[in-house]
């Protein structure tokens, strides 16, 4: 029998108090592990999501709102930008891809956000070296009424290739669009908000009732945006506008224009534009900064870097919450440490005899000291290991719930090396906690202990 088995057996002898104290440590460790893992996973997700785009261009307003709505679909879009503005970006030599985004609507079933976009979105890497993939024999957006859905949408709604679905007009529960889109492909899981989004072809999106802007409003808006007169705008879109006005005269049926081919550019709007810039990563970063500066001076739109905005949000908001959680769990662990201290210290009077007997059998003072310390370490480690397992169990159970509530995809078996620091922390704590009782054992009088 060595010291560890001796300590272990005397722990086992006092099973209930030992288990209770270990359990309190386990609880603290479990919470800490859960917080660490969730935090790591969430941070990683935030850092990766949107990292494939250098800039998101949107109307003036809150950059955070722009990113949250465009990349995460968890905030309302700010306003709209004229289609012509998107076309300008397409022609900008610094821009490799400009991808238009139209948002606000949701699927009738499941209430998933709808994004109207171009096929370009799916051939662009959504994060460095990460491309969207659809299933075998499935397609991307090719036709006007095509849709591609995220893996979660497919799973929750039971949709697959060929499924037709309708959508609800932005913010109006009772306004279901008549038009139907057909699922052409299901995206492989990406661990990003794309998984819970339904993408439809932007052409179809525009052709839906109420999605093309009334022409007079459109002229007004475009003129205002580009600081031109309405006459200049009308001149620019003369052919389209004449055509539209002619149809208006023909029929009052509000859906009439559906049958007349693609939506004219003047009536199109976008909620935001994703930009992938030309050049090396350094050049891209530089250009992004320059563009951001230009737009700031232009005072009609803004460009935001999704990773930067999220990093700021994480440090300011999530970071503080995480810190608060870590403080809290540390406190729990410290309290459980005190619990172990009280438990061992209380047992010392009962153990005066045991210690004296061991000394009489030839144990040194340092040996009985180590024995008490060992017990404290064992209690803490036992709790720690149990806590690690328990923590992972919490993540395992919580992951799908968090996913369902917030759309954050969390790997339920995620493991972060950081969590292993609890082991040395616990050993240090156990040593501190066991020190005083150990000292009592070290100093206890053998003859007196044998009297009892």
């Amino acid at each position, binding site marked *: *029998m*060595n010291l560890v088995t*001796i300590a272990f*057996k*005397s722990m*086992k*002898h*006092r099973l209930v108090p030992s288990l209770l104290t270990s359990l309190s440590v386990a609880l603290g460790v479990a919470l800490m592990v859960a917080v660490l893992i969730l935090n790591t996973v969430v941070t990683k997700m935030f850092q990766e999501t949107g990292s494939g785009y250098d800039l998101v261009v949107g109307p003036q307003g809150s950059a955070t709102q722009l990113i949250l709505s465009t990349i995460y679909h968890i905030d309302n879009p700010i306003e709209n930008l004229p289609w012509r503005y998107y076309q300008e970006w397409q022609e900008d030599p610094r821009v490799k891809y400009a991808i238009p985004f139209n948002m606000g609507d949701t699927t009738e079933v499941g209430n998933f956000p709808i994004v109207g976009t171009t096929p370009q979105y799916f051939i662009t890497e959504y994060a460095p070296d990460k491309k969207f993939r659809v299933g075998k024999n499935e397609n991307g957006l090719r036709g006007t009424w095509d849709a591609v859905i995220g893996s979660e949408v497919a799973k929750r709604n039971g949709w697959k290739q060929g499924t037709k679905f309708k959508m609800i007009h932005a913010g109006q529960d009772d306004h279901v669009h008549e038009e139907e889109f057909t699922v052409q492909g299901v995206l492989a899981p990406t661990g990003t908000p794309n998984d819970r989004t339904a993408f439809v072809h932007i052409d179809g999106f525009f052709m839906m009732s109420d999605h093309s802007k009334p022409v007079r409003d459109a002229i007004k808006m475009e003129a205002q945006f580009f600081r031109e007169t309405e006459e200049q705008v009308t001149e620019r879109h003369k052919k389209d506008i004449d055509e539209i006005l002619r149809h208006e005269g023909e029929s009052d049926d509000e859906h009439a224009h559906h049958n007349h081919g693609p939506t004219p550019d003047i009536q199109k709007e976008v909620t935001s534009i994703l930009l992938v810039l030309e050049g090396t990563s350094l050049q891209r970063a530089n250009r992004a900064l320059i563009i951001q500066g230009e737009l700031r001076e232009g005072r009609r739109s803004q460009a935001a870097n999704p990773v930067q905005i999220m990093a700021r949000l994480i440090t300011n908001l999530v970071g503080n919450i995480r810190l608060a959680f870590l403080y809290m769990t540390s406190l729990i662990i410290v309290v459980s440490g005190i619990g172990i201290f009280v438990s061992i210290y209380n047992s010392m009077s009962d153990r005066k*005899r*045991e210690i*004296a*007997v*061991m*000394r*009489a*059998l*030839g*144990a*040194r*003072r*340092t*040996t009985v000291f180590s024995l008490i310390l060992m017990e404290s370490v064992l209690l803490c480690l036992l709790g720690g290991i149990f806590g690690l397992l328990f923590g992972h169990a919490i993540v395992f159970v919580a992951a799908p719930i968090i996913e369902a509530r917030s759309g954050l995809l969390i790997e339920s078996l995620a493991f972060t090396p950081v969590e292993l620091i609890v082991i040395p922390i616990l050993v240090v704590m156990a040593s501190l906690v066991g020190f005083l009782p150990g000292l009592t054992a070290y100093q206890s009088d*053998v*003859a007196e202990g*044998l009297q009892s």
Partner: protein
Amino acid sequence: MSLELIDVRKSYREPGGAELPILNISHFTLEEGEQVALIGQSGGGKTTLLNVISGLTRPDSGRVIIGGLDVTDLPEPARDRFRAERIGIVFQTFHLLPAFTALENVLLGMAFAGKQSRKYATELLDLMGLKARMNHKPGQLSVGEQQRVSVARALASRPRLMLADEPTASVDLANQENILKLLQETCREKNVSLLLVTHSQEVSSQFERVEQLSDFNQIEVHA
């Protein structure tokens, strides 16, 4: 091993501050392999004497020489080591550890001497007639059995000197003789010197050499 006590004094301080002399032994010897019963009344200092011999209590002055080695001069860790390897102790109240089985208690008797042999522990328990009780915890054993486990434990590290502190005082009559016999026979067999202290004439009558503690402990005994 032989034992020699020279001018050993030990006194305690009374709560009032006055000196309370317990031991004052000018000379006492025990030969190698010898067995002696030391008779003394309750409170006469028997336990204190054994503690001084085993090194658990330091005498105020004097020398304790075991096997020719003056153990009083040894630093504490060395005395602990010496006790672990050379001295076996049997207590009046057994002092078995309740968390451990009979076998484990015997193994503990070797643990601090750094030599553990499950085989020898088993052998000793067998010798004590406890073959069927090895894996029982003290709480599951009768007092007689418990004391036999403690004798096995005291013998576990193959000591050369056995100190027995009223080993039969807590045991029922039927077991007293048996335990005493076991202790005497195994000590004789293994050539272990035995110093047994008791207040009972009945026990001491089993020994060839019997000493009255009061004969050589020169203190005024309080009434």
